[in-house]
């Protein structure tokens, strides 16, 4: 018994080391969205091309990605080619042009290509506040009923798509 007591510090150390080790692998910047499994907040916003005003029913009917971007956002530029690739593969993406100049946004899409089914303009950033956006790019997986199923903050690249977003996206695609 007295012998065993000698191992107590070692045991405490091992437990602590294990806890800290797993803590190392966590991304402190990744915030869980408060809105996952909740319907997309209602909106009524203009689109980038044309004079139409759309609401959240724009995202009903099938699984889509809602991508928050802006021309001021450097990381969005990194992400753009991959969004184009996803669009080519048949993934429906709706853009939310966040706190941006619509003319600059149109010029950007004309120059770099347009991966979006539609782009909704949130020039004042009010809808971003409803969504809990705190940076760009952010991407939401929205199911056919308009319910948010996943949120990714940061650039989507092939790895992020394959490991984190695609499994969620696939799981909500309704088999035809």
């Amino acid at each position, binding site marked *: 018994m007295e012998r065993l007591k000698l191992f107590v510090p070692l045991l405490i150390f091992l437990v602590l080391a294990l806890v800290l080790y797993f803590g190392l692998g966590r991304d402190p910047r990744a915030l869980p969205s408060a809105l996952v499994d909740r319907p997309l907040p209602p909106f009524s916003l203009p689109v980038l091309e044309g004079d139409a005003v759309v609401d959240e029913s724009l995202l009903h009917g099938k699984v889509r990605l809602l991508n928050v971007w802006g021309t001021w956002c450097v990381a969005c530029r990194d992400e753009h080619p991959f969004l184009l690739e996803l669009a080519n593969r048949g993934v429906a993406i709706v853009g939310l042009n966040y706190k941006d100049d619509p003319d600059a946004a149109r010029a950007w899409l004309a120059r770099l290509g347009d991966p979006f089914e539609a782009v909704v303009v949130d020039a004042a950033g009010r809808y971003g*506040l409803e969504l*809990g956006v705190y*940076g760009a790019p952010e991407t939401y997986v929205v199911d056919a009923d308009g319910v948010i199923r996943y949120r990714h903050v940061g650039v989507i690249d092939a790895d992020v798509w394959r490991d984190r977003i695609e499994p969620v996206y696939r799981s909500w695609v309704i088999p035809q």
Partner: protein
Amino acid sequence: MVCWLLASTANAEVEVRDFDSLTERERYRALIEELRCPQCQNQNLAASDAPIAQDLRAEVLRLLREGRSDREIIDHLVARYGDFVRYRPAWQPSTYLLWGAPGLLLLVAAGAWLWVLRRQRRQRIELGPEQRATLDRLLDDERQQR
């Protein structure tokens, strides 16, 4: 040194605001001190100059002017940004351990202390009359030898 101290407590809040009343100003101040900036994580809304913090300060003021209570305003932001935006965690199942840990640790420490005390008391040896006499004799012998 003084400059450095002043600088470290400076607020990044740059907007000039007109408040309708002192209480409104105080409530606004208290709220932006207590709410955390989602972008810069280790700063509250008052201290952060991130664009999102500016937006959220404006949002807090807008909600205040709508006549919402402090609690409603915090709930409003928590519903959108998650529990993360509170610097003072709520009392809810996921935080019971967080809030309870100090008391729990205190109890454990008090328990350990009592246990040690008891053990010490048990180890105190009472001497019988014979043993006492032997002890006295030994001590006397020693004194005489000196």
